[in-house]
Protein backbone atom coordinates (compact mmCIF):
# COMPACT_ATOMS: atom_id res chain seq x y z
CA UNK A 1 0.00 0.00 0.00
CA UNK A 2 1.06 3.52 -0.66
CA UNK A 3 1.53 5.20 2.65
CA UNK A 4 0.02 8.63 2.95
CA UNK A 5 1.90 11.84 2.38
CA UNK A 6 1.59 13.63 5.64
CA UNK A 7 1.20 17.34 5.63
CA UNK A 8 2.54 18.10 9.06
CA UNK A 9 4.02 21.28 7.63
CA UNK A 10 0.68 22.51 6.49
CA UNK A 11 -0.78 22.97 9.88
CA UNK A 12 -0.18 26.69 9.82
CA UNK A 13 -2.31 26.94 6.72
CA UNK A 14 -5.16 29.34 6.95
CA UNK A 15 -7.85 28.08 9.29
CA UNK A 16 -10.04 31.13 9.04
CA UNK A 17 -13.45 29.54 9.04
CA UNK A 18 -12.65 27.33 11.94
CA UNK A 19 -14.12 28.07 15.33
CA UNK A 20 -14.12 24.94 17.38
CA UNK A 21 -11.92 22.55 19.26
CA UNK A 22 -12.90 19.79 16.88
CA UNK A 23 -11.31 21.62 13.99
CA UNK A 24 -10.03 19.40 11.26
CA UNK A 25 -10.91 16.25 13.07
CA UNK A 26 -13.33 13.72 11.74
CA UNK A 27 -12.28 11.20 14.29
CA UNK A 28 -13.86 12.68 17.38
CA UNK A 29 -16.24 9.79 16.85
CA UNK A 30 -13.89 7.76 19.03
CA UNK A 31 -12.40 10.51 21.14
CA UNK A 32 -14.85 10.37 24.01
CA UNK A 33 -14.69 6.60 24.40
CA UNK A 34 -13.03 5.23 27.51
CA UNK A 35 -9.35 4.58 26.91
CA UNK A 36 -9.59 0.77 27.06
CA UNK A 37 -12.22 0.72 24.32
CA UNK A 38 -10.30 3.16 22.17
CA UNK A 39 -7.21 0.98 22.48
CA UNK A 40 -9.22 -1.94 21.17
CA UNK A 41 -10.78 -0.23 18.19
CA UNK A 42 -8.22 2.31 17.03
CA UNK A 43 -6.84 0.03 14.32
CA UNK A 44 -10.11 -1.63 13.44
CA UNK A 45 -11.21 -0.48 9.98
CA UNK A 46 -14.90 -0.96 10.69
CA UNK A 47 -14.95 0.97 13.95
CA UNK A 48 -12.47 3.77 13.54
CA UNK A 49 -13.12 6.27 10.79
CA UNK A 50 -9.43 7.03 10.77
CA UNK A 51 -8.30 3.41 10.71
CA UNK A 52 -10.51 2.53 7.78
CA UNK A 53 -8.23 4.53 5.50
CA UNK A 54 -5.24 2.37 6.48
CA UNK A 55 -6.15 -1.09 7.70
CA UNK A 56 -7.80 -3.97 5.89
CA UNK A 57 -10.38 -6.52 6.92
CA UNK A 58 -11.81 -9.70 5.51
CA UNK A 59 -14.89 -11.82 5.97
CA UNK A 60 -15.14 -15.56 5.47
CA UNK A 61 -18.45 -17.09 4.44
CA UNK A 62 -18.61 -20.18 6.66
CA UNK A 63 -22.09 -19.70 8.10
CA UNK A 64 -24.85 -20.41 5.58
CA UNK A 65 -27.80 -21.23 7.85
CA UNK A 66 -30.13 -18.68 9.37
CA UNK A 67 -32.69 -18.88 12.15
CA UNK A 68 -34.89 -15.92 11.26
CA UNK A 69 -36.36 -14.26 8.19
CA UNK A 70 -36.08 -10.52 7.57
CA UNK A 71 -38.30 -8.72 5.06
CA UNK A 72 -35.25 -7.13 3.44
CA UNK A 73 -33.59 -10.47 2.78
CA UNK A 74 -34.05 -13.05 0.04
CA UNK A 75 -32.63 -16.32 1.30
CA UNK A 76 -31.50 -17.29 -2.17
CA UNK A 77 -28.72 -14.76 -1.56
CA UNK A 78 -26.47 -13.71 1.32
CA UNK A 79 -27.81 -12.02 4.42
CA UNK A 80 -28.94 -8.57 3.31
CA UNK A 81 -27.87 -6.92 6.50
CA UNK A 82 -24.28 -8.03 6.32
CA UNK A 83 -24.00 -8.01 2.57
CA UNK A 84 -25.35 -5.95 -0.24
CA UNK A 85 -28.51 -7.63 -1.53
CA UNK A 86 -28.35 -9.94 -4.49
CA UNK A 87 -24.90 -11.29 -3.69
CA UNK A 88 -24.02 -14.97 -3.39
CA UNK A 89 -20.83 -15.91 -1.56
CA UNK A 90 -19.08 -19.20 -1.99
CA UNK A 91 -19.60 -21.09 1.27
CA UNK A 92 -16.35 -22.39 2.75
CA UNK A 93 -15.68 -25.16 5.22
CA UNK A 94 -13.87 -24.02 8.38
CA UNK A 95 -10.66 -25.62 7.02
CA UNK A 96 -10.93 -23.73 3.75
CA UNK A 97 -11.72 -20.52 5.60
CA UNK A 98 -8.62 -20.81 7.78
CA UNK A 99 -6.51 -21.42 4.72
CA UNK A 100 -7.96 -18.39 3.00
CA UNK A 101 -7.40 -16.12 6.00
CA UNK A 102 -3.79 -17.22 6.28
CA UNK A 103 -3.23 -16.57 2.58
CA UNK A 104 -4.85 -13.15 2.62
CA UNK A 105 -3.08 -12.09 5.82
CA UNK A 106 0.21 -13.03 4.19
CA UNK A 107 -0.52 -11.06 1.02
CA UNK A 108 -2.23 -8.01 2.51
CA UNK A 109 -0.13 -7.12 5.57
CA UNK A 110 -2.49 -4.25 6.45
CA UNK A 111 -5.00 -6.88 7.52
CA UNK A 112 -6.06 -6.55 11.16
CA UNK A 113 -9.52 -8.06 11.32
CA UNK A 114 -11.27 -11.28 10.37
CA UNK A 115 -15.03 -11.29 10.59
CA UNK A 116 -17.68 -13.93 10.23
CA UNK A 117 -20.92 -12.37 9.13
CA UNK A 118 -22.71 -14.90 7.02
CA UNK A 119 -23.92 -15.63 4.47
CA UNK A 120 -26.56 -16.58 7.08
CA UNK A 121 -26.25 -16.03 10.82
CA UNK A 122 -22.89 -17.06 12.33
CA UNK A 123 -24.44 -18.16 15.63
CA UNK A 124 -27.02 -20.30 13.84
CA UNK A 125 -23.96 -22.24 12.60
CA UNK A 126 -22.08 -22.47 15.89
CA UNK A 127 -19.90 -25.45 14.99
CA UNK A 128 -18.63 -24.00 11.74
CA UNK A 129 -18.15 -20.52 13.17
CA UNK A 130 -16.36 -21.58 16.32
CA UNK A 131 -14.16 -24.14 14.58
CA UNK A 132 -12.90 -21.29 12.38
CA UNK A 133 -12.27 -18.98 15.33
CA UNK A 134 -10.55 -21.69 17.36
CA UNK A 135 -8.10 -22.52 14.64
CA UNK A 136 -7.36 -18.89 13.83
CA UNK A 137 -6.75 -17.76 17.41
CA UNK A 138 -4.04 -20.38 17.43
CA UNK A 139 -2.45 -19.83 14.04
CA UNK A 140 -2.78 -16.07 13.61
CA UNK A 141 -3.03 -14.65 17.12
CA UNK A 142 -2.36 -11.11 15.87
CA UNK A 143 -5.59 -11.01 13.84
CA UNK A 144 -8.63 -9.64 15.64
CA UNK A 145 -11.77 -11.73 15.39
CA UNK A 146 -15.29 -10.43 15.19
CA UNK A 147 -18.73 -11.76 14.52
CA UNK A 148 -22.09 -10.35 13.45
CA UNK A 149 -25.40 -11.82 14.51
CA UNK A 150 -29.13 -11.22 14.54
CA UNK A 151 -28.93 -12.01 18.25
CA UNK A 152 -31.45 -14.84 18.49
CA UNK A 153 -28.84 -17.44 19.49
CA UNK A 154 -26.60 -14.93 21.24
CA UNK A 155 -27.24 -15.66 24.94
CA UNK A 156 -26.36 -19.35 24.53
CA UNK A 157 -23.18 -18.40 22.62
CA UNK A 158 -21.74 -15.79 24.96
CA UNK A 159 -19.81 -18.31 27.00
CA UNK A 160 -18.13 -19.80 23.94
CA UNK A 161 -17.50 -16.35 22.43
CA UNK A 162 -15.67 -15.20 25.54
CA UNK A 163 -13.43 -18.27 25.31
CA UNK A 164 -12.17 -17.43 21.85
CA UNK A 165 -10.91 -14.00 22.66
CA UNK A 166 -13.46 -12.40 20.39
CA UNK A 167 -13.69 -8.85 21.55
CA UNK A 168 -16.04 -7.44 18.93
CA UNK A 169 -19.62 -8.54 18.37
CA UNK A 170 -22.11 -6.81 16.10
CA UNK A 171 -25.82 -7.31 16.76
CA UNK A 172 -28.41 -6.21 14.23
CA UNK A 173 -31.19 -4.61 16.21
CA UNK A 174 -33.89 -2.99 14.12
CA UNK A 175 -36.39 -2.45 16.91
CA UNK A 176 -37.08 -2.85 20.62
CA UNK A 177 -40.86 -2.95 20.15
CA UNK A 178 -42.51 -6.23 19.00
CA UNK A 179 -45.18 -4.30 17.08
CA UNK A 180 -42.48 -2.74 14.97
CA UNK A 181 -40.69 -6.10 14.81
CA UNK A 182 -43.78 -7.80 13.40
CA UNK A 183 -43.44 -5.58 10.33
CA UNK A 184 -39.78 -6.56 9.82
CA UNK A 185 -39.54 -10.24 10.78
CA UNK A 186 -42.15 -12.65 9.39
CA UNK A 187 -40.83 -15.60 11.43
CA UNK A 188 -38.09 -16.97 13.66
CA UNK A 189 -37.06 -20.55 14.41
CA UNK A 190 -37.09 -21.01 18.16
CA UNK A 191 -36.99 -24.09 20.38
CA UNK A 192 -37.72 -26.47 17.50
CA UNK A 193 -40.63 -24.48 16.10
CA UNK A 194 -41.23 -21.79 13.55
CA UNK A 195 -42.85 -18.85 15.32
CA UNK A 196 -44.60 -16.30 13.18
CA UNK A 197 -45.22 -12.58 13.45
CA UNK A 198 -45.30 -10.51 16.63
CA UNK A 199 -44.69 -13.46 18.93
CA UNK A 200 -41.49 -14.34 17.10
CA UNK A 201 -40.35 -10.72 17.01
CA UNK A 202 -40.90 -10.42 20.77
CA UNK A 203 -38.64 -13.43 21.44
CA UNK A 204 -35.99 -12.11 19.08
CA UNK A 205 -35.97 -8.70 20.78
CA UNK A 206 -35.73 -10.28 24.22
CA UNK A 207 -32.80 -12.48 23.17
CA UNK A 208 -30.99 -9.56 21.53
CA UNK A 209 -31.24 -7.40 24.63
CA UNK A 210 -30.26 -10.25 26.91
CA UNK A 211 -27.25 -11.11 24.74
CA UNK A 212 -26.17 -7.49 24.57
CA UNK A 213 -26.21 -7.13 28.34
CA UNK A 214 -24.33 -10.43 28.82
CA UNK A 215 -21.58 -9.37 26.42
CA UNK A 216 -21.24 -5.95 28.00
CA UNK A 217 -20.97 -7.59 31.42
CA UNK A 218 -18.01 -9.61 30.18
CA UNK A 219 -16.30 -6.62 28.66
CA UNK A 220 -16.83 -7.79 25.11
CA UNK A 221 -17.35 -4.80 22.81
CA UNK A 222 -20.76 -4.62 21.19
CA UNK A 223 -21.68 -2.63 18.13
CA UNK A 224 -25.32 -2.38 17.11
CA UNK A 225 -26.40 -2.24 13.47
CA UNK A 226 -29.84 -0.99 12.50
CA UNK A 227 -31.39 -1.00 9.08
CA UNK A 228 -33.36 2.20 8.55
CA UNK A 229 -36.73 1.36 6.98
CA UNK A 230 -38.72 4.55 6.32
CA UNK A 231 -42.25 4.36 7.68
CA UNK A 232 -41.46 1.17 9.62
CA UNK A 233 -38.71 1.89 12.14
CA UNK A 234 -37.24 5.27 11.20
CA UNK A 235 -38.89 7.13 14.06
CA UNK A 236 -38.27 4.24 16.41
CA UNK A 237 -34.49 4.11 15.90
CA UNK A 238 -33.70 7.03 18.20
CA UNK A 239 -35.32 4.95 20.95
CA UNK A 240 -33.30 1.90 19.88
CA UNK A 241 -30.16 4.03 20.13
CA UNK A 242 -31.02 5.05 23.68
CA UNK A 243 -31.85 1.53 24.82
CA UNK A 244 -28.78 -0.18 23.37
CA UNK A 245 -26.52 2.50 24.75
CA UNK A 246 -27.97 2.06 28.22
CA UNK A 247 -27.30 -1.69 27.91
CA UNK A 248 -23.66 -1.04 27.08
CA UNK A 249 -23.27 -0.95 23.28
CA UNK A 250 -20.38 1.32 22.35
CA UNK A 251 -21.39 2.12 18.79
CA UNK A 252 -24.62 2.37 16.84
CA UNK A 253 -24.52 2.08 13.08
CA UNK A 254 -27.64 3.07 11.13
CA UNK A 255 -27.60 1.67 7.62
CA UNK A 256 -29.98 2.44 4.78
CA UNK A 257 -32.48 -0.19 3.61
CA UNK A 258 -31.63 -1.33 0.11
CA UNK A 259 -34.73 -2.74 -1.56
CA UNK A 260 -35.20 -3.30 -5.29
CA UNK A 261 -37.79 -5.53 -6.95
CA UNK A 262 -35.07 -7.59 -8.64
CA UNK A 263 -33.70 -8.63 -5.25
CA UNK A 264 -36.96 -10.53 -4.75
CA UNK A 265 -37.33 -9.43 -1.14
CA UNK A 266 -40.66 -8.64 0.50
CA UNK A 267 -39.76 -4.96 0.80
CA UNK A 268 -38.34 -4.87 -2.72
CA UNK A 269 -41.53 -6.25 -4.20
CA UNK A 270 -43.80 -4.15 -2.00
CA UNK A 271 -42.07 -1.02 -3.31
CA UNK A 272 -40.90 -0.12 0.20
CA UNK A 273 -38.49 2.79 -0.39
CA UNK A 274 -35.10 3.07 1.25
CA UNK A 275 -34.11 6.36 2.89
CA UNK A 276 -32.63 9.21 0.85
CA UNK A 277 -29.09 10.31 1.71
CA UNK A 278 -30.64 13.28 3.45
CA UNK A 279 -33.08 11.24 5.55
CA UNK A 280 -30.28 8.86 6.55
CA UNK A 281 -27.97 11.68 7.57
CA UNK A 282 -30.74 13.37 9.54
CA UNK A 283 -31.42 10.20 11.50
CA UNK A 284 -27.71 9.55 12.05
CA UNK A 285 -27.39 13.09 13.39
CA UNK A 286 -30.42 12.63 15.63
CA UNK A 287 -29.00 9.39 17.05
CA UNK A 288 -25.43 10.59 17.44
CA UNK A 289 -26.52 12.99 20.13
CA UNK A 290 -27.00 9.78 22.02
CA UNK A 291 -24.08 7.78 20.85
CA UNK A 292 -21.34 7.15 18.37
CA UNK A 293 -22.29 6.48 14.82
CA UNK A 294 -20.33 4.66 12.21
CA UNK A 295 -20.78 6.55 9.00
CA UNK A 296 -18.10 4.85 6.97
CA UNK A 297 -19.76 1.40 7.09
CA UNK A 298 -19.90 -0.10 3.60
CA UNK A 299 -22.32 -3.00 4.13
CA UNK A 300 -19.62 -5.34 2.83
CA UNK A 301 -20.35 -8.74 1.35
CA UNK A 302 -19.97 -11.84 3.50
CA UNK A 303 -16.73 -12.74 1.74
CA UNK A 304 -15.25 -9.25 1.32
CA UNK A 305 -11.45 -8.92 1.29
CA UNK A 306 -9.30 -5.81 1.53
CA UNK A 307 -9.64 -2.21 2.60
CA UNK A 308 -13.13 -1.02 3.46
CA UNK A 309 -14.82 -0.05 0.21
CA UNK A 310 -12.72 -2.37 -1.91
CA UNK A 311 -13.12 -6.06 -2.53
CA UNK A 312 -10.15 -8.15 -3.60
CA UNK A 313 -12.01 -11.42 -3.10
CA UNK A 314 -11.37 -12.48 -6.69
CA UNK A 315 -7.62 -12.63 -6.02
CA UNK A 316 -8.18 -15.18 -3.29
CA UNK A 317 -10.52 -17.83 -4.63
CA UNK A 318 -9.90 -21.32 -3.27
CA UNK A 319 -8.15 -22.58 -6.41
CA UNK A 320 -5.78 -19.60 -6.42
CA UNK A 321 -5.01 -20.12 -2.74
CA UNK A 322 -4.08 -23.76 -3.38
CA UNK A 323 -1.29 -22.57 -5.65
CA UNK A 324 0.14 -19.98 -3.29
CA UNK A 325 3.33 -20.64 -1.41
CA UNK A 326 3.19 -18.93 1.92
CA UNK A 327 5.68 -18.50 4.72
CA UNK A 328 3.32 -17.91 7.66
CA UNK A 329 6.00 -16.95 10.16
CA UNK A 330 7.53 -14.37 7.86
CA UNK A 331 4.08 -13.04 7.04
CA UNK A 332 3.30 -12.42 10.70
CA UNK A 333 6.59 -10.54 11.18
CA UNK A 334 5.85 -8.47 8.10
CA UNK A 335 2.36 -7.68 9.42
CA UNK A 336 3.77 -6.51 12.71
CA UNK A 337 6.14 -4.16 10.85
CA UNK A 338 3.42 -2.74 8.61
CA UNK A 339 1.03 -2.24 11.53
CA UNK A 340 3.74 -0.46 13.51
CA UNK A 341 4.52 1.73 10.52
CA UNK A 342 0.87 2.72 10.13
CA UNK A 343 0.59 3.34 13.87
CA UNK A 344 3.54 5.76 13.61
CA UNK A 345 1.92 7.57 10.70
CA UNK A 346 -1.31 7.89 12.62
CA UNK A 347 0.51 9.19 15.66
CA UNK A 348 2.20 11.90 13.61
CA UNK A 349 -1.16 12.77 12.16
CA UNK A 350 -2.70 12.98 15.63
CA UNK A 351 0.08 15.27 16.80
CA UNK A 352 -0.42 17.51 13.79
CA UNK A 353 -4.08 17.62 14.58
CA UNK A 354 -3.48 18.46 18.22
CA UNK A 355 -1.10 21.23 17.18
CA UNK A 356 -3.71 22.59 14.82
CA UNK A 357 -6.32 22.59 17.54
CA UNK A 358 -4.00 24.50 19.83
CA UNK A 359 -3.25 27.02 17.13
CA UNK A 360 -6.94 27.71 16.72
CA UNK A 361 -7.38 28.01 20.45
CA UNK A 362 -4.56 30.58 20.59
CA UNK A 363 -5.92 32.54 17.68
CA UNK A 364 -9.23 32.72 19.37
CA UNK A 365 -12.61 32.04 17.94
CA UNK A 366 -12.54 34.73 15.24
CA UNK A 367 -15.93 35.99 16.22
CA UNK A 368 -15.46 38.94 13.91
CA UNK A 369 -16.21 36.70 10.98
CA UNK A 370 -19.78 36.19 9.91
CA UNK A 371 -21.21 32.73 10.46
CA UNK A 372 -20.71 30.44 7.50
CA UNK A 373 -23.07 27.77 6.26
CA UNK A 374 -22.01 24.12 6.11
CA UNK A 375 -20.99 22.66 2.74
CA UNK A 376 -20.95 19.02 1.62
CA UNK A 377 -17.96 17.90 -0.43
CA UNK A 378 -17.40 14.57 -2.15
CA UNK A 379 -13.91 13.05 -2.17
CA UNK A 380 -12.43 10.37 -4.42
CA UNK A 381 -9.83 8.30 -2.59
CA UNK A 382 -8.19 4.89 -2.79
CA UNK A 383 -7.29 5.00 0.89
CA UNK A 384 -4.48 6.36 2.99
CA UNK A 385 -6.58 9.38 3.98
CA UNK A 386 -5.49 11.34 0.89
CA UNK A 387 -7.15 12.49 -2.32
CA UNK A 388 -5.68 10.00 -4.76
CA UNK A 389 -8.40 8.70 -7.07
CA UNK A 390 -9.49 9.92 -10.51
CA UNK A 391 -13.06 11.11 -10.74
CA UNK A 392 -13.78 8.64 -13.52
CA UNK A 393 -12.31 5.65 -11.67
CA UNK A 394 -14.08 6.13 -8.37
CA UNK A 395 -16.65 3.51 -7.51
CA UNK A 396 -17.51 5.43 -4.39
CA UNK A 397 -17.13 8.91 -2.95
CA UNK A 398 -16.59 9.83 0.69
CA UNK A 399 -18.77 12.71 1.79
CA UNK A 400 -17.44 15.34 4.19
CA UNK A 401 -19.17 18.30 5.70
CA UNK A 402 -17.16 21.49 6.19
CA UNK A 403 -18.61 24.12 8.48
CA UNK A 404 -17.56 26.84 10.86
CA UNK A 405 -16.75 24.15 13.39
CA UNK A 406 -14.43 22.10 11.20
CA UNK A 407 -14.69 19.04 9.01
CA UNK A 408 -16.66 15.92 9.73
CA UNK A 409 -17.10 12.69 7.85
CA UNK A 410 -20.71 12.10 6.83
CA UNK A 411 -20.71 8.87 4.86
CA UNK A 412 -19.98 7.32 1.51
CA UNK A 413 -21.94 7.03 -1.68
CA UNK A 414 -21.45 4.26 -4.14
CA UNK A 415 -21.62 4.68 -7.88
CA UNK A 416 -20.52 3.08 -11.10
CA UNK A 417 -17.10 4.35 -12.19
CA UNK A 418 -17.78 6.97 -14.83
CA UNK A 419 -15.03 5.54 -16.93
CA UNK A 420 -13.19 2.31 -16.35
CA UNK A 421 -10.60 2.85 -19.06
CA UNK A 422 -9.39 6.42 -19.37
CA UNK A 423 -10.56 9.88 -18.60
CA UNK A 424 -12.43 10.43 -21.86
CA UNK A 425 -13.90 7.12 -22.92
CA UNK A 426 -17.05 7.17 -25.03
CA UNK A 427 -20.08 5.65 -23.41
CA UNK A 428 -19.87 6.44 -19.73
CA UNK A 429 -23.03 8.50 -20.12
CA UNK A 430 -25.44 6.75 -17.79
CA UNK A 431 -22.72 6.10 -15.23
CA UNK A 432 -22.14 9.85 -15.05
CA UNK A 433 -25.85 10.44 -14.56
CA UNK A 434 -25.80 8.01 -11.69
CA UNK A 435 -22.80 9.72 -10.13
CA UNK A 436 -24.49 13.12 -10.45
CA UNK A 437 -27.55 11.71 -8.74
CA UNK A 438 -25.50 10.14 -5.96
CA UNK A 439 -23.61 13.37 -5.37
CA UNK A 440 -26.76 15.48 -5.09
CA UNK A 441 -26.36 17.92 -2.23
CA UNK A 442 -22.57 18.19 -2.64
CA UNK A 443 -21.12 21.47 -3.89
CA UNK A 444 -17.57 20.31 -4.57
CA UNK A 445 -16.00 17.07 -5.70
CA UNK A 446 -12.32 16.62 -4.86
CA UNK A 447 -10.32 14.10 -6.83
CA UNK A 448 -6.78 13.59 -8.10
CA UNK A 449 -7.88 14.26 -11.64
CA UNK A 450 -11.08 14.93 -13.47
CA UNK A 451 -11.58 14.60 -17.22
CA UNK A 452 -12.82 17.28 -19.59
CA UNK A 453 -16.11 15.56 -20.37
CA UNK A 454 -17.68 15.27 -16.91
CA UNK A 455 -16.55 18.79 -16.01
CA UNK A 456 -19.45 20.59 -17.67
CA UNK A 457 -22.25 18.32 -16.41
CA UNK A 458 -20.79 18.50 -12.87
CA UNK A 459 -20.75 22.28 -12.92
CA UNK A 460 -24.23 22.39 -14.41
CA UNK A 461 -25.41 20.24 -11.49
CA UNK A 462 -23.92 22.73 -9.06
CA UNK A 463 -20.97 20.51 -8.14
CA UNK A 464 -17.61 22.18 -8.61
CA UNK A 465 -14.96 19.68 -9.79
CA UNK A 466 -11.60 20.24 -8.14
CA UNK A 467 -8.38 18.39 -8.97
CA UNK A 468 -6.03 20.88 -7.34
CA UNK A 469 -5.56 19.01 -4.08
CA UNK A 470 -4.29 15.70 -5.44
CA UNK A 471 -2.28 13.70 -2.88
CA UNK A 472 -3.22 16.05 -0.04
CA UNK A 473 -4.73 14.87 3.22
CA UNK A 474 -8.52 14.87 2.81
CA UNK A 475 -9.43 17.00 5.80
CA UNK A 476 -6.78 19.62 5.04
CA UNK A 477 -7.96 19.89 1.46
CA UNK A 478 -11.63 20.12 2.42
CA UNK A 479 -10.82 22.90 4.89
CA UNK A 480 -8.69 24.73 2.32
CA UNK A 481 -11.50 24.65 -0.25
CA UNK A 482 -13.99 25.76 2.37
CA UNK A 483 -11.74 28.67 3.21
CA UNK A 484 -11.48 29.60 -0.50
CA UNK A 485 -15.25 29.56 -0.69
CA UNK A 486 -15.49 31.76 2.38
CA UNK A 487 -13.04 34.29 0.98
CA UNK A 488 -14.95 34.29 -2.30
CA UNK A 489 -18.10 35.13 -0.38
CA UNK A 490 -19.86 31.88 -1.24
CA UNK A 491 -20.69 30.82 2.27
CA UNK A 492 -23.08 33.48 3.45
CA UNK A 493 -26.29 32.23 1.92
CA UNK A 494 -27.66 29.06 0.44
CA UNK A 495 -26.35 28.42 -3.08
CA UNK A 496 -28.50 29.87 -5.85
CA UNK A 497 -28.19 26.81 -8.06
CA UNK A 498 -30.10 23.91 -6.57
CA UNK A 499 -28.56 20.59 -7.42
CA UNK A 500 -30.72 18.28 -9.42
CA UNK A 501 -29.80 15.06 -11.10
CA UNK A 502 -29.33 15.63 -14.79
Amino acid at each position, binding site marked *: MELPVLNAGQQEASQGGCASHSCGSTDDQLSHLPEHIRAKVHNHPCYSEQAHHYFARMHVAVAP*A*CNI*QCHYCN*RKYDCSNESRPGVVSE*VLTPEQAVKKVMAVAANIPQMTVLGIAGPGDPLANPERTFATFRELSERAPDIKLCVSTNGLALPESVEELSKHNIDHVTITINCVDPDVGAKIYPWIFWK*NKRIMGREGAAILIEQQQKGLAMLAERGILVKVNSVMIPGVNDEHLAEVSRVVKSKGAFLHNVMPLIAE*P*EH*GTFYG*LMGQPGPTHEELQKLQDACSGDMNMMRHCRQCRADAVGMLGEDRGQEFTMDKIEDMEIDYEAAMVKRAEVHAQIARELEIKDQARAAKTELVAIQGLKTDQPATRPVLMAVATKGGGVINEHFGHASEFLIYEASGSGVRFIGHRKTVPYCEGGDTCGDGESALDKTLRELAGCEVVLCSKVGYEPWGPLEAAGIQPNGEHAMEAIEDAVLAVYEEMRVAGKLEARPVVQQKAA
Partner: protein
Amino acid sequence: MALEIIESCVNCYACEPLCPNEAIYQAAPHFLIDPVKCTECIGDFEVAQCASICPIEGAILDELGAELNPPGSLTGISLEMLAKYQAAVEATYQAALEAKSA
Protein backbone atom coordinates in the same frame (compact mmCIF):
# COMPACT_ATOMS: atom_id res chain seq x y z
CA MET B 1 -43.37 -42.03 5.37
CA ALA B 2 -40.78 -39.46 4.53
CA LEU B 3 -40.31 -35.87 3.46
CA GLU B 4 -38.46 -34.86 0.31
CA ILE B 5 -36.17 -31.94 -0.55
CA ILE B 6 -36.52 -30.73 -4.13
CA GLU B 7 -34.47 -28.57 -6.50
CA SER B 8 -35.53 -25.19 -5.12
CA CYS B 9 -33.35 -25.94 -2.05
CA VAL B 10 -30.62 -23.25 -1.81
CA ASN B 11 -28.16 -25.41 0.17
CA CYS B 12 -28.28 -23.27 3.28
CA TYR B 13 -27.44 -26.17 5.64
CA ALA B 14 -30.09 -25.03 8.15
CA CYS B 15 -32.07 -28.27 8.20
CA GLU B 16 -29.14 -30.69 8.28
CA PRO B 17 -28.05 -30.43 11.95
CA LEU B 18 -31.66 -30.45 13.21
CA CYS B 19 -32.71 -33.86 11.95
CA PRO B 20 -33.07 -36.30 14.87
CA ASN B 21 -32.33 -39.21 12.54
CA GLU B 22 -29.45 -37.83 10.52
CA ALA B 23 -31.58 -38.40 7.46
CA ILE B 24 -30.50 -35.19 5.74
CA TYR B 25 -27.28 -35.13 3.78
CA GLN B 26 -25.43 -32.74 1.54
CA ALA B 27 -25.54 -33.74 -2.11
CA ALA B 28 -25.21 -32.12 -5.51
CA PRO B 29 -27.01 -30.10 -6.70
CA HIS B 30 -28.89 -29.84 -3.39
CA PHE B 31 -29.46 -31.42 0.03
CA LEU B 32 -31.43 -34.67 0.14
CA ILE B 33 -33.42 -36.70 2.66
CA ASP B 34 -32.81 -40.41 3.02
CA PRO B 35 -36.39 -41.74 2.91
CA VAL B 36 -35.42 -44.81 4.87
CA LYS B 37 -34.16 -42.80 7.84
CA CYS B 38 -36.76 -39.99 7.86
CA THR B 39 -39.56 -40.48 10.39
CA GLU B 40 -41.16 -37.06 9.77
CA CYS B 41 -39.86 -36.40 13.27
CA ILE B 42 -42.71 -38.33 14.85
CA GLY B 43 -41.81 -39.29 18.40
CA ASP B 44 -39.03 -36.68 18.57
CA PHE B 45 -40.71 -33.36 17.83
CA GLU B 46 -44.18 -31.93 17.39
CA VAL B 47 -43.32 -30.67 13.93
CA ALA B 48 -40.94 -31.78 11.18
CA GLN B 49 -37.72 -29.96 11.99
CA CYS B 50 -36.43 -29.51 8.46
CA ALA B 51 -39.69 -28.01 7.26
CA SER B 52 -39.80 -25.72 10.29
CA ILE B 53 -36.53 -23.96 9.60
CA CYS B 54 -36.31 -24.15 5.81
CA PRO B 55 -36.53 -20.57 4.48
CA ILE B 56 -37.48 -21.55 0.94
CA GLU B 57 -41.15 -21.97 0.17
CA GLY B 58 -41.86 -25.22 -1.65
CA ALA B 59 -38.41 -26.75 -1.13
CA ILE B 60 -39.71 -29.53 1.13
CA LEU B 61 -42.59 -31.82 0.17
CA ASP B 62 -44.61 -34.21 2.31
CA GLU B 63 -45.08 -37.87 1.46
CA LEU B 64 -47.93 -36.98 -0.90
CA GLY B 65 -45.83 -34.46 -2.77
CA ALA B 66 -47.56 -31.41 -1.26
CA GLU B 67 -45.52 -28.33 -0.36
CA LEU B 68 -45.11 -27.99 3.40
CA ASN B 69 -44.42 -24.28 3.10
CA PRO B 70 -46.61 -23.10 0.22
CA PRO B 71 -45.97 -19.81 -1.62
CA GLY B 72 -46.47 -16.75 0.58
CA SER B 73 -46.47 -18.71 3.84
CA LEU B 74 -42.93 -17.72 4.88
CA THR B 75 -42.05 -14.51 3.11
CA GLY B 76 -45.47 -12.92 2.80
CA ILE B 77 -44.74 -12.63 -0.91
CA SER B 78 -47.87 -13.58 -2.86
CA LEU B 79 -47.87 -15.38 -6.21
CA GLU B 80 -48.75 -12.10 -7.86
CA MET B 81 -45.72 -10.40 -6.32
CA LEU B 82 -43.59 -13.36 -7.31
CA ALA B 83 -44.59 -12.87 -10.96
CA LYS B 84 -43.46 -9.27 -10.61
CA TYR B 85 -40.12 -10.52 -9.28
CA GLN B 86 -39.65 -12.82 -12.22
CA ALA B 87 -40.41 -9.94 -14.60
CA ALA B 88 -37.87 -7.72 -12.80
CA VAL B 89 -35.19 -10.41 -12.96
CA GLU B 90 -35.91 -10.96 -16.64
CA ALA B 91 -35.68 -7.21 -17.33
CA THR B 92 -32.33 -6.96 -15.50
CA TYR B 93 -31.05 -9.94 -17.44
CA GLN B 94 -32.15 -8.50 -20.78
CA ALA B 95 -30.57 -5.15 -19.96
CA ALA B 96 -27.30 -6.91 -19.14
CA LEU B 97 -27.44 -8.80 -22.44
CA GLU B 98 -28.07 -5.62 -24.40
CA ALA B 99 -25.27 -3.77 -22.62
CA LYS B 100 -22.94 -6.61 -23.52
CA SER B 101 -23.84 -6.69 -27.22
CA ALA B 102 -23.78 -2.88 -27.49
